[in-house]
């Protein structure tokens, strides 16, 4: 029998002890999956069967919106109990989801300490490191001996999130250094913490941008990053939080490249919300291309083969533009394009790559289109050569421009403090379409009339 069916059966029977037993053996993440499969009527029984610790643990694996949905029907005292047991950062996020009245009611049921912690964390802006930090860390005094520290470790370790690194502070909670758990275990009891302490630690400020803290933790290979405010240790950011952040951000970028907005699943409502807006904008932009083409109707009517290859020029520009766009967006996301010299370097390389790709593909396009029209035998060879020349030059020039635009636009958006990933694939593609149409048909009228083709 599947675990979810088993659970539903136990809930129907009201067998609290067995429910608790079943969930207790499970990882909290697995419990969230079961919880999501329950009907609204079954949830209260489920919650009653478990103790506050278990619930707090399970709820910390849900995102705030999901957690809010499950807690909506629960009574405020249960909510308060769960919130107190949760990590302060998760609790602060969850509390934000409730209405002001509900919040007041919950707040009145929480003890002062927890309230202070939550309040402190909820004052941070969503993009600040303070918003994702946890205050569940272990400190030892700089004046302590290894023996003292070990005693404290034994006393407090079971409540702490990450214990690989212990934070050494002075009397005023100012961070002085860190001690590896490994080093502490090997050290002799009467050694001083100040002697085994690593003073060369990495930290972030509480108001620093989350992205910069995430990068610090990644680059320095840390499991935990201390967060300071005026040198005082305020909290820690742990690597599992960072993985969540990276997961969310990379998925967002991916969606934007594909022209998707917000959450994705196949439900009609989300489809309409996440996919349609982009497509409508895109369709309207495409009609700009259409009206632009209208201006070239005359030449199109006289030299029909130009139409055959129009989509080739447009597509290739769009494709290479998307490539260079992606490379700039990734560069920005990895914080590699923060220095002026780096940007210049990057753009230089992109331009060179665009130029060479353009020339190679231009030559290829010349050969392909020439052979194609030659076989088709609609036009004299002289005209075929001219048309192929138009295509080759437009292709080379179009790819070069598209590459450059694709790599520059995300950087400009970034400079204007906008999300560079917004310049999504579809957007760049349409922009390049407009450019390519102008290049293609202008070149066509120029070269063909110069080459003596009646227009």
């Amino acid at each position, binding site marked *: 029998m599947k675990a979810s069916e088993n659970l539903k059966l136990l809930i129907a029977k009201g067998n609290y002890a067995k429910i608790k037993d079943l969930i207790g053996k499970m990882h909290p993440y697995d419990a969230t999956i079961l919880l999501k499969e329950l009907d609204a009527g079954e949830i209260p029984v489920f919650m009653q069967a478990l103790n506050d610790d278990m619930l707090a643990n399970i709820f910390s694996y849900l995102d705030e919106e999901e957690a809010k949905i499950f807690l909506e029907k629960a009574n405020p005292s249960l909510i308060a109990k769960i919130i107190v047991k949760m990590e302060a950062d998760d609790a602060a996020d969850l509390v934000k989801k409730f209405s002001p009245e509900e919040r007041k009611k919950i707040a009145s049921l929480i003890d002062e300490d927890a309230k202070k912690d939550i309040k402190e964390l909820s004052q941070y802006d969503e993009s600040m490191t303070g918003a994702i930090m946890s205050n569940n860390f272990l400190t030892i005094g700089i004046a302590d001996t290894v023996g003292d520290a070990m005693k404290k470790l034994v006393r407090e370790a079971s409540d702490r999130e990450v214990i690989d690194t212990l934070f050494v502070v002075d009397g005023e909670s100012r961070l002085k250094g860190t001690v590896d758990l490994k080093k502490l275990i090997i050290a002799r009891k009467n050694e001083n913490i100040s002697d085994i302490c690593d003073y060369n630690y990495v930290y972030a400020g509480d108001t620093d941008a989350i992205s910069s803290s995430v990068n610090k933790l990644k680059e320095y290979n840390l499991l935990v990053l201390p967060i300071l405010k005026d040198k005082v240790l305020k909290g820690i950011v742990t690597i599992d939080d960072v993985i969540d952040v990276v997961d969310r951000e990379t998925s967002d970028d991916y969606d934007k490249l594909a022209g998707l907005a917000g959450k994705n699943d196949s439900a009609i409502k989300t489809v309409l919300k996440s996919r349609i807006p982009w497509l409508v904008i895109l*369709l309207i932009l495409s009609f700009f291309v*259409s009206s632009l083409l209208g201006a070239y109707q005359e030449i199109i009517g006289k030299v029909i083969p130009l139409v055959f290859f129009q989509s080739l020029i447009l597509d290739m520009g769009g494709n290479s533009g998307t490539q260079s766009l992606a490379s700039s967006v990734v560069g920005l996301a990895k914080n590699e394009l923060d220095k002026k010299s780096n940007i210049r370097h990057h753009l230089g390389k992109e331009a060179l790559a665009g130029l060479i790709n353009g020339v190679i593909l231009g030559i290829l396009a010349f050969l392909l289109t020439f052979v194609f029209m030659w076989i088709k035998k609609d036009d004299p060879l002289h005209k075929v050569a001219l048309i192929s020349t138009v295509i080759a030059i437009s292709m080379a020039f179009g790819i070069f421009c598209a590459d450059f635009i694709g790599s520059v636009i995300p950087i400009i958006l970034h400079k204007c403090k906008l999300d560079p990933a917004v310049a999504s694939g579809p957007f760049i593609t349409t922009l390049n379409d407009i450019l390519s149409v102008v290049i293609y048909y202008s070149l066509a009228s120029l070269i063909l009339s110069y080459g003596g083709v009646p227009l």
Partner: protein
Amino acid sequence: MMPVWMNKQLLKMKKEDLDKLLSSLKANEIQSIVKNVSLSNLLALARMVNVANKIRLTQNLSETSVLFLLNHLDRKDDLAIINEFSEEKRNYCLNKIDPKIVSEIKELKAKHLKMHPKDIAFKLEDLRPEEREEFFALFTAEELAEFFGYLESSEVSGYMEALSDKKASDVLENMDADDAADVINELEEKDKSLYLKLMSKERKEELEALANYAEDEAASIMDPSFIAVDGDKDVKDAMKILVKRAPDVASISTLFVVVGNKFYGVLDFRKLIVTKSPCLVKTITDVHVKTVDVHDRIEKVIEITDDYDIYALPVLDKEKIVGVITIDDVLARMNTEREEDYNQLAGISGTTDMQTTAKERIKNRLPWLVILCFLDLLVCIVIAMFDNVIEARIALVLFAPAILALSGNVGTQSLAICIRGISANELNTKSKKAKHIVKEARNGFLIGMIMALIAFSLTFLYLRFVLKDASTNDFKIAFIVAFSVLASVTCSSLFGCVTPIVFDNLHIDPAAASGPFITTINDVISIVIYFSLAMLVL
């Protein structure tokens, strides 16, 4: 064997020539020089030559000669020489030479170790090759191994030639096994076998075992050193093992419990320190733990670590634990995996960073573009087949880009959703796949309807009020455009989700169905729909 007078001649040579000569000599030839010169001449020689040669001259010297040189050369050279030695020999030398010199050496060292190891590591790329040789000489193999842990394996392999063979192999001995295996992979065959020969037997076996796993298998990023304890032992014994093994492992916060050669579960350090003896390790072990098989895909590892917040994931071969994947390695790998997915959607192979040269960028992109160029030619051929229709109604041409762009983008959207679904393991059964395809078809139709309505109005308004060409039947053309939008959007949506599923079933990476690829295929379909419809209606 070199005659004695030759050795005297050496001192009269120009510095550059001398360096060149020594570099070209074999180890036994250097030996014979060293044996035949007086200590004072050896000192003079050592002062003249570059770092690499200083090291070569001093490696197999007698104890007295080494101490003599250390006492008389400058501190930087002293460091270069002793950093080549084993820790034991190094400490021995430091005990024997002038204490004043020792403190000066320590001071010099401390000056260079002031920065965080990562910051030192990131500075290396700014150094010129000669500078790098001198800089590396300031540090021991252990220290260099720590710096290199922060760098990409391709960078590290490039730095290896600035080290003597022995030191390079010592560095590989001291790095994390998975990182060292990656570096070895990047080396040339000749260096690879040389370094492997110089390192300890255990390390060599470890690295060779890791090299057997494919890059996308879980075992390729595992750390083969971890603390294993017997479940039938007492907690006190476990604590003893922990203290003894602590220096060799990355983290001690998780212990891995084994019962009779089989993996049993994990023991949290926090639980261990609060448990009083006597108590069997087995009884406080968590047995409901997630594990992966050596051959599992990395994507699975990333997913488990992300979902369950696991800091050290056990890797099993059959039922035996062979390694551990730590969360920091997962994070690093997650970044590259995600970047690759992203790039693939954009039609780029591999990853790009600031070091990637224009040539490599072209190499990553041009093949895709050439393939796409040929695919696009297919679109051209299809359009050309309809040249009669086009000649009769030029206005039709105007709306082709809009239809193509729209169907291409719908296709990319449903492609992205589907690839995400596959990599998140949400589409793992036949029925789920079928359900997803049906849903996407329905969504495509729905989106198509809405877009068709908009496209109809836009086309109609444009033809009637902007183009104002009496010869075109604006109503009919608007109808053709709208209907083509509906049909091609539905098809693209379906195609965008079916292709990766088919790829997945054929065990091809679904992400290989890149955005541009799907777009071009959809172009062909859309063009056929559009012009056939036009031919039919007009």
